[in-house]
């Protein structure tokens, strides 16, 4: 079932006196419960796509249908209500929060705004959500600034799933984390997808991360989607110049076999 259908999406920016097409006719689809990995270099337009899709900035042209609704036509209270279904996790989304806000307040926010859980049940729901993302219930009382970067992204994920979304936009959601933490967060995201049928638009400049979790991968370059296909096909036999550059850029662990034999 098609969950998201983006057609010919356009967005221009004035930058340094020039008019730049950040999105130059982007079309893509996302099925329910699917992960689409979106890769591209800086300036390829992938973060603009995330912002237009999540209605943080307006589009200049094109259409977005989400759950068969005209997503760009929604406004006011209707948009607020429907937004529960499309959550987002950015690189450091909680960095934008009041640093004194408690973890509980951050996770409760969507429960309150979207009315997912009545007030009496919220404390229990927060504890259940914390538990689901691998944090003890005692974290609810901590302030956001007292948790580590990895824990902060777990809390951001808890906040996103609190709204019971059909999809989550993940924009460089694990890029700032240590390598050893990244794998745990990826595993958590995959488990949540299996368990709750959430679709992900997973945006990253790291093709190795996308290949780990994506059913399909799309490559963006100069505001356009230049290549789409199953993750293994795109990473194994990239067709576009942009995809080839991204494949080449993934650092490989070079372990020389003769050294392994020698020891």
């Amino acid at each position, binding site marked *: 079932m098609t969950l998201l259908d983006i057609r010919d999406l356009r967005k221009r920016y004035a930058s340094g006196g020039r008019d730049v097409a950040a999105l130059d006719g982007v079309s893509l689809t996302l099925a329910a419960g699917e992960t689409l990995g979106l890769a591209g270099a800086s300036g390829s337009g992938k973060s603009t796509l995330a912002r237009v899709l999540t209605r943080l900035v307006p589009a200049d042209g094109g259409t977005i249908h989400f759950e068969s609704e005209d997503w760009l036509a929604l406004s006011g209270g209707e948009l607020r209500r429907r937004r529960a279904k499309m959550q987002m996790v950015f690189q450091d989304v909680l960095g934008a929060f009041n640093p004194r806000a408690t973890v509980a307040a951050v996770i409760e926010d969507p429960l309150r705004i979207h009315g997912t859980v009545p007030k009496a049940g919220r404390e229990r729901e927060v504890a259940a959500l914390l538990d689901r993302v691998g944090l003890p219930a005692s974290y609810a009382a901590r302030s956001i600034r007292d948790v580590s970067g990895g824990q902060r992204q777990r809390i951001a994920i808890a906040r996103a799933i609190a709204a019971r979304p059909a999809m989550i936009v993940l924009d460089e959601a694990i890029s700032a984390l240590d390598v050893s933490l990244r794998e745990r967060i990826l595993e958590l995201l995959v488990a949540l997808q299996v368990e709750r049928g959430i679709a992900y638009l997973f945006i990253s400049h790291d*093709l190795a991360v996308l290949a780990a979790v994506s059913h399909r991968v799309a490559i963006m370059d100069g505001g356009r989607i230049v290549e789409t296909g199953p993750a293994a096909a795109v990473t194994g036999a990239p067709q576009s110049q942009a995809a080839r550059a991204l494949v080449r850029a993934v650092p490989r662990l070079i372990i020389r076999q003769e050294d392994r034999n020698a020891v």
Partner: protein
Amino acid sequence: MTALCEIRQLAVTYRGQPASALRDIDLDIRTGERLAIIGESGSGKSTFARALAGLLPDGARVAGSLCWMAGHAPRAGRDIGFVFQDPSASLNPVLTIGEQVAEGARRHLGLSRRQGQAHALDMLARVHIPDPERTLHAFPHLLSGGQRQRVAIAAALAAKPGLLIADEPTSALDMVVQADIVALLDELVRDGGMTLVFVTHDIALASGFADRVAIFHDGQLVETGSTAEVLAAPQAAYTAALIASHRDLATPPLIREAGR
């Protein structure tokens, strides 16, 4: 190989911090080598780089010794070039690119203003800035992150230092640009016969060009050795875990994909 610097029992504690950021570090920097300092957040790797360059903040307590072959502490900018993670923070927004690249060379090599500009132009060409003539008179905000980092590298190398310390120079850049910057550093260090200390969280990135690696964890040096030996047979459990957590395109995916 002779040691450019012998580091013994180095420990650093920042002001107001109860625990030391770095302790018990014994390590030799060998002349002409490419040494990768590898660690995650809080490992002390950046503290090590700053201690080596004499760039620790006021009030940091340093114990132990740094013994330099030259017989005196190196002068930052003259004997050591330093490239930071965020090129925007290391460049002055109100000075032209040419002035900033020339600054170190003018101060340390005694060049005139005109000679400094000519030298800056030469440095911009060496770091493969497109249209170096125009970039010379431009301000940093007009450049992309990758181009800014090239400028920062040009400025760090302008006074022809023997040692270049690069502290996570590609972490703020996308991976395609990262690959370009690493190739550039590789080329410049080889051409200039320099010693390179490259600080990174990415063991795979280091495996591509470092002669030796030093693995830092929780303020301590847990393992050091030739890159090939450490990767093939890590002695410390932490190093093994770091290697195991590496993911590239050959790593099996976490999901089952139709047709795989």
